[in-house]
């Protein structure tokens, strides 16, 4: 199973994973983007800031994907996790899985996301908030 994992401080541009497997063996392409939502703990936010222990995060992701690939054989998997400030509506993570059959692709994808949130040393460091709306509305007369 081909495994690619990377961290980036830039906006994630998902690669085109359908261009692989010239032998026609790929029957399923599954992709997932985890997008920053406009609310955190009930407050409106404008962005989340992520922090990573780069080398270990990449190593743990690769090891995790290798282990999952033993149980759910896939052709290839690509993971891009963004770090630094990620504005609301943009992806903090993107994963693409290519496989012969969809069940393996779905299982690998779902289990990876579950375990990512347990073991991969990446943190939501802090939320960024918009200025209070009454400031934006100007001073009261």
């Amino acid at each position, binding site marked *: 199973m081909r495994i690619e994992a990377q961290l980036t401080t830039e906006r994630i541009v998902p690669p085109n994973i359908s261009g692989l497997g010239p032998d026609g063996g790929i029957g399923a392409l599954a992709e997932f983007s*985890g997008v920053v939502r406009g609310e955190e703990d009930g407050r409106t936010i404008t962005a989340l800031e*992520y*922090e*990573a*222990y780069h*080398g*270990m*995060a990449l*190593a743990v992701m690769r090891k995790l994907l290798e282990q999952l690939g033993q149980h759910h054989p896939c052709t290839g998997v690509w993971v891009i*996790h963004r770090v630094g400030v990620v504005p609301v509506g943009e992806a*903090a*993570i993107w994963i693409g899985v290519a496989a012969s059959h969809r069940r393996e692709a779905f299982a690998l994808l779902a289990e990876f*996301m579950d375990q*990512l*949130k*347990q*073991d*991969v*040393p*990446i*943190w*939501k*460091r802090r939320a960024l908030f918009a200025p209070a709306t009454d400031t934006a509305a100007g001073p009261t007369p």
Partner: protein
Amino acid sequence: MTEDSGMRILFFAQLKDATGREEIRWPETGPLTAADIWARLEREWPAVTVHRRTTRLARNGEYARPDEVFLAGDEVALIPPVSGG
């Protein structure tokens, strides 16, 4: 002595806040257990204590076993609960 003779300690997330540091170096250290490392850290930054129960140690980029021995030249990281994705 090479620069590998010491031990690098990396702090992330809450541990970075608790210590005010991203990274420190302990020069010329002998073999240390996890308990040794925590004792030294708590002595210098008492604020780390509340994170000890939930924070895992990593040695050279891998989660450490409970009985792991940390050696001169190691990169040790304090990993509070992760929240990626």
